[in-house]
C-alpha cells in the first residue's frame, strides 16, 4: 500500500507567451500511493489543472520527472505512452465532449481501442451511464444536455476503460449537491472495490473531507502544505489552508457574523464568547455537559461544526459561556487541559478570522 503509483519529481511548468512568462507550476514534488484518494485544493489560478495535466503528460513539464505506475513517462515511446494513458482516466474541467457523438458514443470512445465487440462496448458504456444517472439520455448529443449532465458524461467516459488512476479536475463543480454526493460515493466505491487511485482537484472542501485521504494545498504554483486529511483539517499550518478550512467548515464567516452581531457584542459581565477547536477522542467526554455539571457554566451554542472524520471527531464551535467569572476561567482551563483550543472572541481582532 505504500507504493507510489504517481511520483512527480521537481516539476516545473512555464508558459511562454510572447514577452509574458508564467510559471504555472514551480518545482513541485507529488507522490500518490496506490489506492489513495488525493485531493488538491488552492486558489483559482494556483496551477492545479496544470499540475495534474502533467500526470498523463498532456502538459509536458519544462523540467522534472514523471513516474507513473513505475514507468518514466518522459522516456516512453509514443506507443507506450498511449498504452500508459489508457490506464489514466481524466475528467476535464471543461468536459471536452465530442459534439458529433451521442452521449453513448462519447462514453464508448475510449473503448474503441480495446478488443471489446460493439455490443460489449455498448453494454459497458450503458452501465456507466446508468451509474451517473444518464442512461435515459444515451442517444442525445452533448448540445442537448445541461452543464451538469455534460459533466456526468465526462465522468462516465473517464471511467470507461477501467483506469488505474483517475484524474478529476473539478468534476463535480457543475453538479448539484445531491448528484455531487452520489458521484463522490461512486468514486469512493470504485476506490474501495477496484483500488482505483484518484487525484481530485476540487473547490469543495466538503468533497475533500468526504472522500480524500490526503490533500495538497497549492498556492502560486507550489504545494505549500500537504498531509493526511485529519492532520490538515485539525492543525493546518499555513494561513491559506486555515482560510480554506475556515470557509469550508464555515467558521470564518460564522465568526465574522457573530462578532459583527450587536446582540452578541453586548454580553453581560457573566458571559464570555469563545471559539473552540478540538479533534480526536476529546469529545468522548461530553464537554458542554461537563462544564455545566462540574463548573456550573452554561454553554450556549451560536455556531457549531462538528463531524466525524476518519474515526475522529473534528469540531469547531462558538459558544457563549455563562457563569461566575472565576468558574468561566476554570472551565476554560479545563477545556485547555483536555486538548481543546480556546480563543476568547470578545477581544478577537476581526481581521484575523475574516476570510
Amino acid at each position, binding site marked *: 500500500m505504500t507504493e507510489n503509483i504517481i511520483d512527480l519529481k521537481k516539476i516545473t511548468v512555464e508558459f511562454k507567451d510572447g514577452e509574458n512568462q508564467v510559471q504555472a507550476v514551480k518545482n513541485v514534488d507529488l507522490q500518490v500511493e496506490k489506492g489513495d484518494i488525493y485531493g488538491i485544493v488552492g486558489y483559482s489560478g494556483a496551477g492545479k489543472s496544470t499540475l495534474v495535466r502533467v500526470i498523463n503528460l498532456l502538459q509536458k513539464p519544462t523540467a522534472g520527472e514523471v513516474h507513473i505506475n513505475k514507468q518514466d513517462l518522459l522516456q516512453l515511446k509514443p506507443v507506450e505512452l498511449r498504452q500508459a494513458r489508457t490506464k489514466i482516466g481524466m475528467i*476535464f474541467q471543461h468536459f471536452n465532449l465530442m459534439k458529433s457523438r451521442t452521449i453513448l458514443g462519447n462514453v464508448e*470512445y475510449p473503448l474503441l481501442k480495446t478488443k471489446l465487440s460493439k455490443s460489449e462496448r455498448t453494454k459497458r458504456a450503458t452501465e456507466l451511464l446508468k451509474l451517473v444517472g444518464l442512461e435515459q439520455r444515451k442517444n442525445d448529443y452533448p448540445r442537448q444536455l445541461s452543464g451538469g449532465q455534460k459533466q456526468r458524461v465526462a465522468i462516465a467516459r473517464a471511467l470507461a476503460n477501467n483506469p488505474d488512476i483517475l484524474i478529476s479536475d473539478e468534476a463535480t463543480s457543475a453538479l448539484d449537491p445531491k448528484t455531487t454526493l452520489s458521484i463522490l460515493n461512486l468514486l469512493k466505491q470504485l476506490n474501495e472495490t477496484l483500488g482505483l487511485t484518484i487525484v481530485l482537484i476540487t473547490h469543495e472542501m466538503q468533497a475533500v473531507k468526504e472522500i480524500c485521504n490526503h490533500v495538497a494545498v497549492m498556492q502560486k504554483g507550489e504545494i505549500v502544505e500537504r498531509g493526511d486529511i485529519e492532520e490538515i483539517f485539525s492543525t493546518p499550518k499555513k494561513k491559506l489552508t486555515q482560510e480554506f478550512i475556515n470557509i469550508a467548515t464555515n467558521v470564518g464567516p460564522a465568526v465574522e457574523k457573530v462578532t459583527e452581531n450587536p446582540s452578541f457584542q453586548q454580553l453581560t459581565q457573566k458571559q464570555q464568547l469563545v471559539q473552540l477547536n478540538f479533534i480526536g477522542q476529546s469529545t468522548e467526554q461530553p464537554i458542554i455537559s461537563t462544564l455545566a455539571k462540574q463548573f456550573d457554566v452554561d454553554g450556549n451554542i451560536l455556531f457549531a461544526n462538528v463531524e466525524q472524520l476518519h474515526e475522529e471527531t473534528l469540531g469547531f464551535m462558538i459558544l457563549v459561556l455563562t457563569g461566575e467569572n472565576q468558574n468561566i476561567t476554570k472551565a476554560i482551563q479545563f477545556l485547555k487541559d483536555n486538548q481543546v483550543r480556546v480563543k476568547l472572541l470578545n477581544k478577537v481582532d476581526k481581521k484575523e478570522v475574516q476570510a
Partner: protein
Amino acid sequence: MASWFPNVIHMQSEFAQATWETVYMTLVSAIIAGVLGLATGIFLIASQPGGILEDSFIYGLLDKIVNLLRSIPFIILLAVIAPFTRYLVGTTIGTTAALVPLIIGIFPFYARQIQNALTEIDPGVIEAAQASGSSPTEIIFRVYLREGLPDIIRASILTIISLIGLTTMAGAIGSGGLGDIAISIGYARFENDVTIVAMLIILIMVFIVQFAGDWLAKRLEH
C-alpha cells in the same frame, strides 16, 4: 420552344452527352481530389506547429507544394502535367485526360480548405482523445474527421462548385462538358440559347450540390 431555343432543340443528344461529361469529370475528380486533398489537409493539420504529429519539415514541404500548385494557371497546368497525364491515362486529350489536371488543379485548394476547417476543432476534444490513449491515426479518423465533418462538408460544397467551374476550362483539351458547350458553341458561335441552357444545367447541379451539402452539414451538426 423552337423560336426561343433555335439551336438547343437540335442539340439534345449533345446536351445529354455534355451533361454526362460534366458529371463524370466532376464526380471522378471530386472523389480522387477529395481523398488527396483530405489527406493533405490532415497532414497539414497534424504536422503543423502544435499539431498531433508536429513536424516542421513535412509541414513546410506540404505547405509549399500546395502553394506551388495553386500558383500555376490552369491552362499551363494542363501543359505542364501533360507527360504525367499521358503516363497515367495514355492520352492528353479528352474527358478522361482532363481528370488529371482537374485533380491536380483542385486538390491543393481543397487541402487548404480542409486545413482551415480542421483548425476550428476544439483543442480540448483532441486532448481528451489523447488522454484516453488515442494514437494520431485514431485521432485523425475518430476525432478530426468526425468532429470536423460539418465543416468538411461545407468545404466540399465550395470545392465541388469550384470544380464544376474548372471543368469548363478543361474544354481546352477536348474534355467536352457543359462549360465547353456554353463557351465554344454558345458563346463563340453566338448561339445564346445554348449558353443559357448549358448554364441552367450547371446551375441546377450547383444547387443540388449546395442543397444536399447544406442538408447534410446541418443534419450532422449535433
